[in-house]
């Protein structure tokens, strides 16, 4: 079991014939992902990485039954690519692209919401269901099957946690990088709700960071309400000064909102175990998996 993505998912890549698209789609295939199509307008009819290329997502969907799309197109075109996938009936859209204008994203997000489909990202590393499939750029070799679900705003810290857990012999169900932008598709809340319902996930690791109030919202409306599974949390940016944008467009403390301490407090109040380092996160998640209570929590 897993959430969002499985070996059954039929994956297409928008921007497959580009440099990044080609590189990462190769990795995705190598991981075992069921890559069924690519979309590159004007290259319809050709073949790349052994899959057919289509001019439009609608064509690709119709011909191959794709239900998941990974987007690797440049920022000026990425919001449109998201909407194209949503309009074509793709169920899960994973947008890796960084630097999408925010006004493009508010429109694309409203569009996706109207279409009733799921978007992960943008500016995210994508997701992996360990041992089954990957859409995005999370390194293949670090993932191991097991009982921990991961949701994170940071790409590289996601890798840290996955690798740490795997090295400690603790595997994962699905690892989801939701992205570091202020306007995102799935939020912590959304992914946590999915983990709550997933019987294979016994423990959830949540990696937040400064900026916005999504961690607080997740704490109050999901974790604090009969979540039923141990949550191990971590917030990066504790030493970041207010008013400075820390790389991620979304990572900024403005006024009293978005501070690490506000997030840590909200998560602790909701019953999550908050750690100071990734090493501690790994240890705590491993311990929670080993406790018999973790299963009872379900």
């Amino acid at each position, binding site marked *: 079991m897993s959430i969002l993505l499985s070996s059954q998912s039929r994956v297409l890549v928008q921007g497959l014939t580009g440099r990044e698209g080609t590189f*990462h789609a190769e990795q995705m295939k190598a991981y075992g992902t069921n890559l069924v199509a690519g979309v590159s307008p004007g290259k319809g009819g050709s073949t790349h990485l052994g899959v057919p290329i289509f001019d439009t997502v609608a064509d690709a969907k119709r011909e191959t039954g794709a239900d998941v799309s990974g987007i690797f197109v440049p920022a000026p075109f990425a919001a449109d690519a998201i909407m194209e996938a949503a309009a074509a009936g793709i169920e899960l859209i994973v947008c890796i692209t960084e630097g999408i204008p925010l006004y493009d994203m508010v429109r694309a997000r409203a569009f996706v919401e109207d279409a009733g489909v799921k978007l992960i990202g943008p500016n995210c590393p994508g997701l992996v269901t360990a041992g089954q499939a990957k859409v995005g750029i999370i390194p293949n070799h670090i993932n191991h099957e097991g009982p921990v679900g991961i949701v994170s705003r940071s790409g590289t810290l996601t890798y840290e946690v996955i690798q740490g857990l795997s090295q400690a012999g603790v595997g994962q169900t699905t690892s989801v990088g939701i992205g570091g932008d202020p306007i995102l598709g799935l939020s912590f809340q959304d992914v946590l709700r999915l983990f709550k319902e997933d019987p294979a996930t016994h423990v959830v690791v949540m990696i937040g960071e400064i900026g916005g109030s999504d961690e607080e919202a997740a704490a109050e409306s999901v974790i604090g309400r009969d979540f039923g599974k141990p949550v191990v949390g971590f917030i990066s940016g504790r030493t970041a000064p207010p008013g400075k944008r820390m790389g991620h467009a979304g990572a900024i403390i403005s006024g009293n909102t978005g501070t690490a301490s506000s997030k840590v407090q909200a998560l602790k109040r909701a019953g999550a175990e908050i750690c100071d*380092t990734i090493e501690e996160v790994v240890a705590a998640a491993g311990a929670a998996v080993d406790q018999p209570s973790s299963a009872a929590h379900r």
Partner: protein
Amino acid sequence: MKFLEYQVKERFRAAGIPVPDGRLARNPDEAALAAGALGSVVVKAQVPIGGRGKAGGIKLARTPVDAKRAAGEILGMTIKGYTVREVWCETAQEIVRELYLGLTLDRDARKPVLILSAQGGMDIEEVAQTRPDAIAKLHPDPWRGPLTFQVRDLIFRAGLGPLQAQLMPLVTKLYALGRTYDALTIEINPLALTRDGGLVAADGKLEIDENAMFRHKDLHGADESDEDPLEAEAKRRKLTYVRLDGSIGVIGNGAGLVMNTLDLVEREGGHAADFLDIGGGAKAEVVHSALELLASDPRVKGILINIFGGITRGDEVAHGIIDATRDLNLNVPLVVRMTGTREEEGRQLLREAGIPPEAGASAAARKIVELAAAGTTRPAAAS
């Protein structure tokens, strides 16, 4: 990208938002000329930051002589790190009431938000906290924009019904302007009600989404280079850099990872000198450029590079590090932590170049803090 007050007002005027008449002055004589033409003027320091009034950067001048003196006092001042190079001299307004009108992005709502308040002239976030009832908000649908009835409703909710006729077009125009410029923030504050019953933008702010700059290549905003020479240099190098107060230079890939690296350095008793994210998929040249930037900072007593390759490849980063250490003759300790995509190739290259990498982030942070404290100078010693 931020804009100076006068640059914002030029755009307001072009969009049909009333602004006071004004002239830009780069020296006291130009200020005197402006006052001669305009009468009583307010002389205002042009810096891309708030709090000019309190810092003495805004003065009323009734005569050209006054204006010359005021400009003389203000030009050359330093306000929060910015040197005043220009003053904006504009007709003094007889203001009977100060309102606020702004547009920004509400990340919790995932939508733009228009904010209107009968309490203008002060920081709107302060008003939001002290008198939340004095603020009316409208979240326009991002496709439809603010509809007429919604704008009218906003105005009545702000208790500004009697100004409806004047405010309706202003709200619509400000929104259109904000959308045209991909504004993260655009505001009129104060929006002044003058003695003759008109509304005029007495001050304005505009900050554009950097991600959208490809749509605005012809725009030139405020010169923000005064803010920090290192940040300005980083911007020229297209690096994501934030200056911090410590002594450990930090480079990493990915915002979360770099933020966490700062936290680890702090935890080990050190203090980071910067946040520097080389981003995803960085090439060797970018790593080289980042190292070069930190090497130019005399505060930096040690450099920690933390890489977890995803879209970024270890071998590319290793090449950049090796080339940079050779070219730059680095005289502070360097610790590299590398894992992820092509980590084997990268680590091998580093070892061959005499820069054996660390595998763990905490251990790497501990080591750089120790080395920097010890004042060790050769990077090779970092192993």
